[in-house]
């Protein structure tokens, strides 16, 4: 089985972010980075599929990102991916379709049976690149997959909805986006880390065209102030409901 997994280098989220002086970006100094959580599950899914096929085939990891994204590709290889490709771009546009075009160009002639993405990148939170790539490559596409069964050239997946799920059938080759609950990613062993240093990593330049979405401003949400105490008994409940509905907008 030839499987491509598209991964992204994202900042570690357990930090207090700072906005740059010009108010358009998040300050990058001091940030630590890792593979996007959902992409880790996609890598794990790819590795498990290859293992199920008696380890015949390969798992190729592709990442569009800066030079430093090589770290993330090496980590994927330490988990077990066979080789990696970096589509180098010092800064990626905010336009998901432009990114999808760059990835699709690389994936087009790869002869992949399966192309895997994480459902969503926790930094951009666009959740669109996967299905867009599928559209550009005219591949059957299923998103939010948390269960997968492949028999020969057909497959069955279960995809997550809000409080429900759908069972879907589709032919291979296909593109899937992998969701939480699919699996638990393996941690790279020391052996894997050492082996990854020697696996092939190709670097190519990424091409972008027709960018239509841009970020014109970046801001921090209002600080998490200490709780507004609404009262000291059940009499406060109506006010709580009202605030949850109108202010917090979660009800």
């Amino acid at each position, binding site marked *: 089985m030839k499987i491509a997994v598209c991964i992204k280098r994202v900042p*570690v989220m*357990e*930090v*207090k972010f700072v906005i740059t002086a010009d108010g358009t970006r998040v300050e990058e100094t001091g940030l*630590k980075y*890792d593979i996007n959580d959902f992409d880790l599950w996609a890598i794990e899914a790819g590795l498990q599929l290859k293992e199920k096929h008696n380890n015949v085939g390969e798992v190729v990891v592709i990442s569009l990102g800066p030079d430093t994204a090589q770290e993330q590709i090496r980590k994927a290889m330490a988990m077990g991916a066979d080789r990696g490709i970096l589509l180098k771009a010092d800064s990626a546009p905010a336009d998901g379709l432009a990114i999808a075009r760059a990835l699709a160009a690389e994936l087009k002639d790869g002869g992949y049976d399966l192309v895997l993405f994480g459902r969503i990148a926790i930094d951009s939170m666009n959740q669109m690149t996967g299905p867009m790539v599928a559209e550009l490559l005219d591949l059957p596409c299923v998103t939010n997959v948390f269960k997968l069964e492949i028999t020969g050239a057909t497959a069955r997946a279960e995809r997550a909805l809000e409080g429900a799920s759908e069972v879907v059938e589709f032919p291979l080759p296909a593109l899937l986006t992998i969701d939480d609950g699919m699996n*638990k990613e*393996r*941690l*790279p*062993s*020391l*052996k894997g*880390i050492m082996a990854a240093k020697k696996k092939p990593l190709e670097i190519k330049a990424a091409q972008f065209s027709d960018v239509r979405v841009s970020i014109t401003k970046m801001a921090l949400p209002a600080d998490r102030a200490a709780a507004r105490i609404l009262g000291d008994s059940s009499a406060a409940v109506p006010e709580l409901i009202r605030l949850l509905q109108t202010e917090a907008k979660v009800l």
Partner: protein
Amino acid sequence: MSPSNIVFAIILVVALGFFTRSAQRLNRWLKIGRDENRTDHPDVRTKNLLLIGLAQTKILRDPIGGMMHALVFWGFCILALGTVEILIQGLYTPFTWDLLLPRFLYLPYVVSQELFAVFVLIPVAYLLYRRLVIKPARFSGDPVHGGDAVFILSMIATLMVTLLIIFAADLRTGASPDGRIVSSLLLPLFGGLTSESAHTVSRVSWWIHAVLILYFLNHLPGSKHLHVLTSLINVWFSNTSGPGRLGAMRPMDLEAEDAEQFGASDVEHLSWKNLLDGYSCTECGRCTAVCPANITGKLLSPRMIVVNTRARLTEKASTLDAIGVGGTATAEQQAVLDKNLLDDWITEEELWACTSCRACVQECPVSIDQLDIINELRRDLVLMESRFPEELQPALTSLERNGSPWAFSASDRAQWAEGMDIPTMAELVERGEKADILFWVGCMGSFDDRSKKITVAFARILQAANVRFAILGQEETCHGDPARRMGNEYLYQMLAKGVIETLDGYAVKTIVTFCPHCFHQMGNEFPDLGGNYEVIHHTEYIERLLADGRVPLDTEHGERLKVAYHDSCYLGRYNDIYDAPRTALKRALPIMELVEPPRTKDRGLCCGAGGGRMWMEENVGKRVNVERSEELLATGADQIAVACPFCMTMITDGVTGAGSTVPVLDISEVIAARLVPGGVTA
């Protein structure tokens, strides 16, 4: 030579021949393990040999059983002289030491033999009684060779009895009574014998004694009594009482070009010293009896770790011997070779139950390092196989991403210091100033609400004493000790090296911390990675400040309190710090009564959080922290004092869980509450 001499010569040659083969075999098997140099600091090693080995200091930790064994051991040493005499007599019947020694030496020699025959016989009889009638708990619970112990004790008893019979019978046949203080008392028993019959009795006893000795010699290599031959050697080569820093984990070179194996999954990955530990184990069970995991019903038994290491070595090495060099293995033999120490003899469950409290190492009378084996197997599980309890994954991932075992933001680290006017090292550099000490806060002290109070209390003490100190603030990250204890040496070295770089960047010389794990890691294990600092635990630092009178305390007022101090494992058994915290408490609370729980100081029971267990669930048996908390509460103390944030968490949980309201306080909180003017409430 008479015919009997010739017969004896043959027996001697055969016995020694068999023994030599056994010794060669045991030595060959040891070489299966990895090489390591243990000849450094011969002075410290010799001191250990004299104290632990010859003076039996560790054996004597068990007062009665220990004294009995010590007598048997000393007896063995003294009676060895007599044994040599007997063996030479086998070849040349008239031989006695009298022929070679001057009178003033020979007489004491005779007395020593007489006395120690009794000083061995009586303890052996007691030890048999203990095994067969009293049946102490630590002799059961593990599948060890109790039958062998009874056999050996009976053999020794027989040796002593035959010896005394020889002495007494010889008196009957006219041997000199000088110095024969014991056998003279036995003489009347032989009164009814003729001189000839007495001679026969003596000869028979002699033969039984001599042959039994030669048999005994050859029984040793296959039994737990091998320790008779290896224990003194083991004590000399052991590091558990020094040289070097106690409890420092084995350094590991991750860069080594051809390194294929990290940690140990089978005996060839352990060092020869680990394997020698296996030979030297007497199966006494003292380690298991003090193991907090075993006490509370977990599968782990430190004794079995060592016994199983020897068993696996025997299994594998004897199979290799059978196959021979260049031979081919049968299917059965291959199956044996394919097994592993890990999983087939020692299970994951046992390995993860360990809290690394070092009580087992502390107790072992022959200086075995059980923890070393456990750690090497953990390293294999984590580094080679990524096999570890699920609960550790969030902590390991967080360490990698956030530099802390908990998912907190680095920017929150110095929040506790708000309003306290404490400079960071970076700020000092900007101002062109320097600090005398770095106050290392640690992750618990930075993020845990309860521990933050300790941080504040200690900072207040430092300020009251006008100490010029600074903190790293947001630049502080975990030094990786939790990862190391969990077996992830790779992550540990990454984090530790990062911290060393930061510390060296500020040319830090002296560090004070209140977390014993940070204290141990930076003080004892950093040097292996090139980080050399003077690291002081806050209890010792406070004690120094109090002794110098630099901390203004109100020691007049206050009620008469009973305080129980819980020893932290990483302060106590790892660093021999037992007194400073107690002295500091006494200085702060002069009308305090310090009460000790039954298991205290180097026998203190662990709180259960060490060895990475702070991040693991406890699903089997009783909670370790509950066991310890009950013990502390049973002292009737009004307050419980601790010196470690992990202990604080575990004991507080245990005390609250028991429905008690006894406050659990850190030493610095006790002290800070008595600062004048004003004082600081915890």
